[in-house]
């Protein structure tokens, strides 16, 4: 039996060592904020205390296992209680716990101090993307997974930041207290960036607070941490922390883009879209935003997400179709896309849905139709 123990111990060590030597990291990140460093220190302190207790208790146990065996002629002693010892091992752990609770309490109180922020950003989770709203500048954008579907389906090779990359990362300045107001549109999500030691649930209808002050510029990646439905594993978070000057430049560029987009929207109103143009843009939008539920072929998932192919809505009244896409459908997973897509994109995707996969209505929805609808 001892042999078996030895072999298994050796095996375990070998497996452990080989994984440690591999590229995988095995411990909590120290992160890039003072708080994340304090959380890391707290984590290491408790880990070491637990390890020491473990060594003592398991050490005593293995001593008994090796030495007090019947096969070695051990005779059982008769004692079965000792008030003194029992009081001792009730009280000692109690003091160890107090020792742990003190740094934990002070760290927690500091983490929960959301006051005096320099910048406020509203973070909204929805199935399955994040939206960031810069309160101080009145603009915002969606941030979606940018890993191509082909990589997920093992058709093309997975790249370095597989599942941890987005089309448009959140950008914040370093050395500033950034406050996050976190909420959700549909189900509960959780916004988590390990390098900041920030994890806060996004509850629909309620607003949670969290904050960070990043010390080093860089790109930091996280993921949604609360099960939020089918694509919970596919809504990453990417944060770019920039030095103040670069951040200001980025901000200026963003505000310019917003102004340009408004202009483009005005121009689009005046133009007429052709079927070909609509189908191309519509397919692009559909694959990126609709296919995760309604599927690439428009067939949906029976019982969960309705089909669009041959559906009464896609083949019926255009106004109703526009209404559902723009405003969503209450009490279902169908979101309101009016704030997520431009009027041109909305028009194109509705045209696409009405003419793809044999839905041959021939309708071409125009930007004005979308704009005029409620």
């Amino acid at each position, binding site marked *: 039996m001892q042999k078996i123990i030895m072999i*298994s111990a050796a095996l375990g060590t070998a*497996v452990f060592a080989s994984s440690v030597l*591999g*590229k*995988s990291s*095995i*411990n909590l*990140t120290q992160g890039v904020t003072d708080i994340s460093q304090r959380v890391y220190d*707290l984590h290491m302190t408790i*880990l070491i205390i*637990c390890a020491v207790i*473990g060594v003592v*208790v398991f050490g005593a*146990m293995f001593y*008994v*296992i090796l030495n*007090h065996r019947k096969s070695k002629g*051990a005779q*059982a*002693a008769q004692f079965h209680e*000792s008030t003194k*010892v*029992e009081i001792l*091992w*009730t009280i000692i752990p109690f003091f160890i*716990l107090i020792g*742990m609770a003190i740094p*934990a*309490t002070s760290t927690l109180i500091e*983490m*929960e101090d959301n006051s005096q922020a320099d910048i406020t950003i509203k973070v909204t989770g929805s199935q399955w993307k994040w939206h960031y709203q810069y309160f101080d500048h009145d603009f915002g954008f969606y941030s979606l997974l940018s890993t191509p579907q082909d*990589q997920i*389906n*093992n058709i093309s090779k*997975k790249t*370095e930041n597989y*599942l941890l990359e987005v089309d448009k990362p959140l950008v914040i300045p370093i050395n500033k207290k950034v406050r996050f107001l976190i909420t959700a549109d549909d*189900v*509960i999500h959780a916004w*988590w960036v390990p390098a900041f*030691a*920030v*994890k*806060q649930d996004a*509850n*629909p*209808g*309620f607003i*949670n*607070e969290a904050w960070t002050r990043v010390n080093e510029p860089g790109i930091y990646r996280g*993921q949604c*941490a*609360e099960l*939020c*439905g*089918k694509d919970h*594993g*596919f809504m990453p978070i990417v944060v770019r922390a920039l030095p103040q000057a670069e951040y200001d430049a980025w901000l200026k560029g963003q505000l310019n883009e917003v102004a340009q987009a408004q202009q483009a929207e005005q121009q689009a109103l005046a133009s007429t879209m052709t079927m070909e143009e609509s189908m191309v843009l519509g397919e692009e939008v559909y694959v990126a935003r609709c296919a995760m539920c309604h599927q690439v072929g428009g067939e949906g998932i029976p*019982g*969960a997400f309705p089909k669009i192919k041959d559906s009464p809505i896609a083949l019926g009244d255009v106004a109703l179709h526009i209404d559902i896409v723009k405003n969503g459908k209450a009490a279902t997973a169908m979101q309101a896309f009016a704030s997520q897509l431009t009027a041109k994109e909305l028009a194109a995707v509705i045209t696409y849905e009405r003419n793809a996969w044999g839905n041959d209505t021939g309708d071409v929805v125009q930007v004005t139709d979308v704009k005029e609808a409620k």
Partner: protein
Amino acid sequence: MNTATTTSDEQQQEHHDHKPKGIMRWLLTTNHKDIGSLYLMFSFLMFLIGGAMAMIIRAELYQPGLQIVEPNFFNQMTTVHGLIMVFGAVMPAFTGLANWMIPMMIGAPDMALPRLNNWSFWILPMAFTILLSSLFMEGGGPNFGWTFYAPLSTTYAPDSTALFVFAIHIMGISSILGAINVVVTIINMRAPGMTYMKMPLFVWTWLITAFLLIAVMPVLAATVTMVLTDKYFGTSFFAAAGGGDPVLFQHIFWFFGHPEVYIMILPSFGIISAIIPAFSRKKLFGYSSMVYATASIALLSFLVWAHHMFTTGMPVAAELFFMYCTMLISVPTGVKVFNWVATMWRGSLTFETPMLFAIAFIVLFTIGGFSGLMLAITPADFQYHDTYFVVAHFHYVLVTGAIFSIMAAAYYWLPKWTGYMYDERLGKIHFWASVISVNVLFFPMHFLGLAGMPRRVPDYALQFADFNQLVSLGGFAFGLSQLIFLVVVIKCARGGEKAPAKPWEGAEGLEWEMPSPAPYHSHTTPPEIK
């Protein structure tokens, strides 16, 4: 009673032994041993089904990318795996052990409420048939995690949610009925002289567990009912738009859920407290402090629920309160571990399969306790919460904790149940295969969680690939190892070396004073309590 006193025990058993043959024996049985066997067989079947789902999960996670199942089906697998293992495998196994052992241990002829006992078992297969059949419905079965957080389980849930709710209701009724039976039996049917402080710890821990069950299963029933009305009848308990609050769901759920965690571990403490002394040939160290520790764990279990919810945005004061209370639980739990080690100290140890599982329980459950203590520290929990670190933690306490103790109990009492000794060599193979593979399976999950892998994801970033592969291999090996247990039990039931009344030299308790296999009716005359 006057005929019972004039005839000998054996003749009387002969007389009472008439029971229907075939399936009717099992359908109509009111015998605590038959019902215990039904519970145990059912729970093993559920263990295999829930385990098969775990195999699907691990197969999908063997490599990054989506290979085998769709994300929606993956979520159904994690959800139903959890529900089956909690409500179908662990809880019924403990109820089965309670049915078999409590009357024998306290000197009673049977459970106090035998017809109720029959029902509390037979509604279980119905509940799980409903739950499993929902997987084949259009839109699939429950996919919102076994914790079914609203509004994912209400507004955004599949159509089959009503079946899920109904199944949970039935499971809850079954648990409550079983618990009432245990309480009534222990309070009323102890043999004369069997005072509370003479009861074996398995009986004590089950008595406390039964009270926990009676206290919290109705809370679960209320929770699922609110989910039902929110989804189908337009109420807004958990929807902000109607004045409700999704976090309210979590408070109610975990007010059930945390005591539930102890429901699944307290009977284990009782089992280990029987096995460790038996194979150390030494009385249990600190019997009364074990009883008090169990009671305080049970009381504290009502004060810690919100440690599952540190990231929901609670006020600091609440976070501190729940952190301190949670840390406090490690004191009575520590007392238990220290007492077991003290029981072994200067004993005369042998290492039959039950003892091996019991020792592995102490070590591995303690590791689960350590990670539990780490999770209690709120600032650190912000990093650990909803990652594989949590998955590692609760599998250490539930698999190498609860399930290892159930295995230990099965090996310990199999000779009493079947009348034959089990195959010790196969038992040891089962133990070593399990204990090695289970650590390959769950230990690297700590690293995955710390490195940042969230739980309940069907796919993951590339830096998690190596450990996931290792974990999956451990998972397949652990799954296969459990088939050895099936072989051992079937072999033991069919024959082998005859078991004496007391096959373990150091075992104590009334069950060992009965012949092996135990007669169909337990103590028909009250035994004498020394």
